[in-house]
């Protein structure tokens, strides 16, 4: 039962094969059993989850339920959950009990999902390996000496290990897609503005987006139906009408035009990864798609531009953590300045401080034009590259990550190498486009994901292609041995 998808669990609950309470207990027991080994969860929400589950069973008995009522899921610890610790993976918020629900949480509760707990993550969503968390690194269930990816590493690991059927993640530079790729699950970053950021602790406001991490594209569609939509409490929320993301899943992809960017398949790409992506694209061609080469000439510049824009925005967003109103406060501050500096210096980890400092530098007087303004111009070029490509093709395909999951401690002392590994994901955030990563194979028994990038608000198309791919392959059904 713990291997089931959201769709299968919905049927099982409906046909009374299992109750929500039994299902919730099953996942809670698994989570408690395996959390020591994987460290996916910062908080396992046992009592409240069981209460929610009992309530869900009552609603089902009274026929007052919806199709997803009573299904347990995990929430990345970046979403405010009323009355539940919300730490963002940081000492700064270790003592923070959120006094409200994020819109994503509100919507998921309203749809009847049970909140299993809050998943571990890179501190303040800054990282690509889930090694920067105050609560310790998360392990990859495929090989626990390897990282799960980041920053949504806890969510990815939990879903891959079948500790929960689905989880939420957030993606600022690849933080849903890359861990999905490294853990062999499906992860979708929606179009910027598609999912409300209200109550989602901000890292980089023009890049952040929350989204589903699931076993299948179908499940991602089910979750999107719950979380997508305009929210007046998020000033960057898109007013675009919301699709029924399940409607087009079974459409044929005959005639679909796939673009393969020349820059994604250069000499630097590992041959074994390239082969998997080529095979993935061939599968889509078997289903009637065609592919051609496209150009995204400014791809290389996306990394430097991202590592200006994201730290700049983070330095601004994290200025609210000052030890005054909430969060960590240092002991015995001598004056206000000391209170600020030491609360922040002691409360933040190394990577966060590095990014705040770079962000502060590039925004400071005398440097703004050279760095931040320049990055915003590069951003324009990158957006235009994609728009030019979409004149010739419908979707763009390529690898999600430059390799499989690397070993713990292998890259954490080399931030630059870590940053360079984001090459396939960051330009998508800079352009605000939707993108999905689907499991596409294995190299040395570690998962490899294929990324599909769509034009604005074309999540339905991406989910359709991913679903057709998953109907004809079984990479997404593979489960790490110890967690079967």
């Amino acid at each position: 039962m713990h291997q089931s998808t959201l769709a299968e669990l919905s049927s099982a609950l409906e046909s009374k094969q299992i109750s929500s309470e039994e299902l919730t207990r099953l996942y809670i027991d698994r989570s408690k059993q395996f959390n020591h080994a994987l460290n996916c969860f910062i908080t396992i929400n046992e009592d409240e989850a069981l209460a929610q589950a009992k309530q869900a069973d009552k609603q089902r008995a009274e026929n007052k339920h919806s199709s997803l009522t009573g299904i347990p899921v995990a929430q990345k610890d970046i979403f405010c959950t009323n009355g539940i610790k919300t730490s963002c993976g940081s000492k700064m918020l270790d003592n923070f009990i959120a006094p409200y629900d994020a819109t994503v949480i509100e919507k998921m509760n309203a749809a009847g999902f049970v909140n299993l707990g809050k998943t571990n993550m890179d501190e303040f969503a800054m990282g690509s390996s889930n090694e920067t968390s105050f609560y310790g690194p998360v392990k990859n269930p495929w090989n626990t000496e390897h990282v799960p990816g980041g920053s949504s590493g806890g969510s990815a690991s939990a879903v891959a290990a079948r500790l929960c059927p689905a989880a939420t993640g957030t993606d600022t530079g690849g933080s849903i897609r890359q861990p999905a790729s490294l853990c062999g699950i499906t992860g979708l970053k929606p179009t910027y503005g598609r999912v409300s950021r209200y109550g989602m602790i901000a890292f980089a406001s023009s890049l952040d987006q929350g989204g589903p991490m699931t076993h299948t594209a179908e499940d991602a569609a089910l979750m999107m139906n719950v979380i997508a939509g305009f929210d007046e409490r998020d000033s960057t929320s898109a007013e675009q009408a919301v699709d029924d993301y399940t409607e087009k899943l079974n459409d044929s992809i005959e005639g679909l035009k796939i673009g393969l960017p020349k820059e994604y398949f250069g000499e630097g790409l590992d041959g074994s990864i390239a082969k998997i992506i080529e095979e993935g694209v061939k599968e889509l061609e078997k289903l009637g798609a065609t592919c051609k080469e496209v150009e995204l000439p400014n791809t290389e510049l996306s990394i430097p531009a991202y590592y200006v824009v994201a730290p700049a925005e983070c330095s601004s967003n994290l200025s609210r953590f000052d030890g005054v109103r909430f969060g960590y406060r240092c002991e015995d501050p001598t004056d206000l300045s000391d209170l600020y500096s030491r609360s922040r210096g002691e409360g933040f980890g190394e990577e966060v401080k590095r990014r705040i400092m770079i962000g502060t530098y590039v925004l400071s007087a005398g440097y703004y034009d050279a760095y931040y303004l320049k990055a915003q111009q590069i951003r324009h070029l990158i957006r235009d590259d994609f728009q030019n490509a979409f004149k010739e093709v419908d979707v763009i395909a390529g690898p999600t990550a430059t390799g499989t999951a690397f070993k713990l401690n292998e890259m954490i002392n080399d931030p630059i190498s870590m940053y360079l590994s984001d090459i396939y994901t960051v330009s998508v955030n800079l352009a605000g486009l939707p993108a999905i990563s689907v499991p596409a194979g294995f190299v040395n028994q570690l998962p490899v994901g294929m990324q599909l990038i769509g034009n604005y608000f074309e999540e339905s198309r991406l989910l359709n292609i991913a679903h057709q791919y998953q109907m004809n392959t079984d990479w997404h059904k593979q489960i790490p041995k110890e967690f079967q």
Partner: protein
Amino acid sequence: MSIDKSEVLKIARLARLSIDEQDIPDYSDELSNILSLVERMNSVSSEGISPISHPLDLSARLRADKVTEKNQREKFQQNAPLTDDGCYLVPKVIE
């Protein structure tokens, strides 16, 4: 472009981050490395390209000037380190 010790101290002060004297060389190296990475942006001319702050050119939404939030000070102050009579307490600022 590199970031030397005095620059590191200046940035740390602007960002209100306390850093240990012994860590300054590491910060100097790390931040200089990141800047080198970032300077790759200069490999392309962006003359005449307008900067965009938002991918979709949205503009700020306006709303009616009405009170819509309710006062939940007591609830929110449950997370506060130190309060008194509804105020947040900090070390004295003005002598």
